[in-house]
């Protein structure tokens, strides 16, 4: 196991994330229950989407205090790569591992569609040359409206910490933000679902290069195994 996929009560994209990482990209992955310790051999963590703890209080507010979050904080503190997708992004913001917060969509609707995104030149792994200047990924959320104060937004812009922007903002996010990273470049968060765009039967496979970019050192070390089906 190299990639730990955290499971909270109410996580529902954990199996999809495991499928994308393990079966499609061929990187060993396991789902880890939120009350278990983070395995010592963990090389990357995905905090998957869903409705952890029923979205009670605020999305991600209760998951943030789950036992495994202490280990996650330590792992991220040592520079370990962490990717939060949808509810996972909300959890990482609540935990203070990423700046800002995600609030109710300005349209008040749950938005579920294949969303066009503009790729930003953020770092050597997340950039237009590698991912393409425009991709489309599934979104499915009611609270994806990214909010941060002006100083934080200015810092994100100045430090190239924005990974993706919505093309046609579906939720009112400040600066059309769909995904960000921390300044150190090891913690990533995004509302769109790359793990739902990896198979021929998905709307597209734009999620593959995104997951590969996040898992780069692991993917390149391990030859991709063809999933038996």
């Amino acid at each position, binding site marked *: 196991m190299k990639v730990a996929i955290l499971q909270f009560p109410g996580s529902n994209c954990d199996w999809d994330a495991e499928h994308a990482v393990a079966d499609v990209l061929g990187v060993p992955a396991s789902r880890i229950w939120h009350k278990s310790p983070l395995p010592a051999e963990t090389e990357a963590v995905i905090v998957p989407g869903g409705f952890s703890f029923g979205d009670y*209080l*605020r999305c991600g*507010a*209760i998951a*943030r*205090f789950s036992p495994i979050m202490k280990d996650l904080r330590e792992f991220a503190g040592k520079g370990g790569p962490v990717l939060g997708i949808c509810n996972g992004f909300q959890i990482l*913001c*609540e935990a203070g591992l990423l700046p*800002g*917060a995600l*609030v*109710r*969509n*300005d*349209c*008040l609707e749950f938005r579920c569609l294949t969303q066009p995104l503009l790729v930003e030149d953020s770092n050597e792994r997340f950039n237009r040359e590698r991912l393409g200047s425009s991709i489309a990924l599934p979104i499915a959320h009611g609270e994806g*409206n990214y*909010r*941060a*104060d002006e100083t934080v937004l200015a810092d994100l812009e100045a430090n190239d910490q924005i990974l993706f922007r919505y093309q046609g903002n579906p939720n*009112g996010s400040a600066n059309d933000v769909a995904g960000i990273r921390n300044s150190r470049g090891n913690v990533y968060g995004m509302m769109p679902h790359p793990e739902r765009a990896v198979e021929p039967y998905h709307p597209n496979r734009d999620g593959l290069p995104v997951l590969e970019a996040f898992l780069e050192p692991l993917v390149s070390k391990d030859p991709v195994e063809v999933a038996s089906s």
Partner: protein
Amino acid sequence: MKVTVFVSPKATVLDPQGAAVEQAMKSLGHQDFAGVRVGKTVTFEVTGEDTPELREKLDQLCDGLLSNPVIEDYRFEIEPG
């Protein structure tokens, strides 16, 4: 004692729920009502005395779990039970 925590969206944060409720108020003919904000209240019981230590504990509880300081403000009231 009974503690009531009031959580509200920060004045600087867009409150889509409040805006929708305000629209509904206006459609009911209440043109003179404005600035609607939707928050939440959390109530619970606590044993002991209303001390500065208790209030400090409540601040810690509010600041992170019951409210997110990035987007929300809070205040609490303590009623002798």
